[in-house]
């Protein structure tokens, strides 16, 4: 390993912060991946509790069933790395106030589930925080078809996107594709924070 490069990256990431809207299949896996990468501060927002049917793709464990998700994920992150600062918000994102938890972060992850809310969130945050990059995801349902996934860049909005994927209500949600796209989002965050690798 190139330790000089690694140390430089580590220093930069330690000073960086990422906000994550929704910590289901996408968000919980993004958070853990970024914590392992060495991000200094995470702001995680969700209103759900951990349920048994989350465990097939979300970064939670059987002994966390019933726990508030933001609390469970904070614990997990601290089992990996105690030095990551994790700010938790256990509430629903409300229209006209969606940007509020993310005012002081370097990058925002859109990891919400419902298409209406995704659109609402992206529109509002792009308007109110025009200088903060957003990394969203659309089209996680199903399995296979990894090569259909692309990154669509619209100004400061980066979408991990499979335009041919079905709505999750008409398809299945499975760990390999959900986690692949979550880590695709996390990898874009590193691109944004560190600049293009060369």
């Amino acid at each position: 390993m190139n330790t000089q490069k690694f140390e430089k990256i580590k220093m930069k990431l330690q000073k960086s912060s990422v906000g994550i809207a929704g910590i289901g299949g996408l968000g919980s896996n993004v958070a853990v991946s970024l914590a392992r990468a060495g991000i200094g501060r995470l702001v995680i927002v969700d209103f759900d509790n951990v349920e048994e049917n989350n465990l097939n793709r979300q970064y939670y464990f059987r002994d966390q069933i019933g726990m508030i998700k933001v609390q469970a994920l904070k614990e997990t992150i601290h089992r990996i790395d105690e030095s990551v600062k994790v700010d938790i918000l256990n509430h629903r994102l409300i229209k006209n106030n969606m940007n509020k938890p993310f005012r002081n972060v370097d990058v925002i992850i859109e990891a919400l589930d419902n298409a209406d809310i995704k659109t609402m969130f992206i529109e509002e945050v792009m308007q109110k925080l025009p200088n903060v990059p957003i990394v969203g995801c659309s089209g996680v349902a199903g399995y296979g078809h990894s090569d259909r996934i692309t990154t669509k860049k619209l100004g400061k909005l980066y979408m991990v996107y499979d335009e041919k994927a079905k709505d999750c209500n008409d398809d299945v949600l499975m760990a390999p594709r959900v986690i692949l796209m979550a880590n695709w989002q996390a990898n874009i965050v590193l691109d944004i924070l560190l600049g293009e690798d060369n």
Partner: protein
Amino acid sequence: MIIVNSNNIDFVENETVSGLLKRMKYVFPNVVVKINGRLVKRTDFADTIIPDKSEVSVIHMISGG
């Protein structure tokens, strides 16, 4: 000529974003649209005219996360 998601599409005079979405058969209820890098709010789709030679990006939001 305008460009929609990297495809060349005929320019139609006075066409709105709503009109273009209909012409492209984009029936999805949730889309994020940018014209020449500028975000168009959904509430403005019916009144926003697309100029010739525009570059339009349309991303639709699919449930699941």
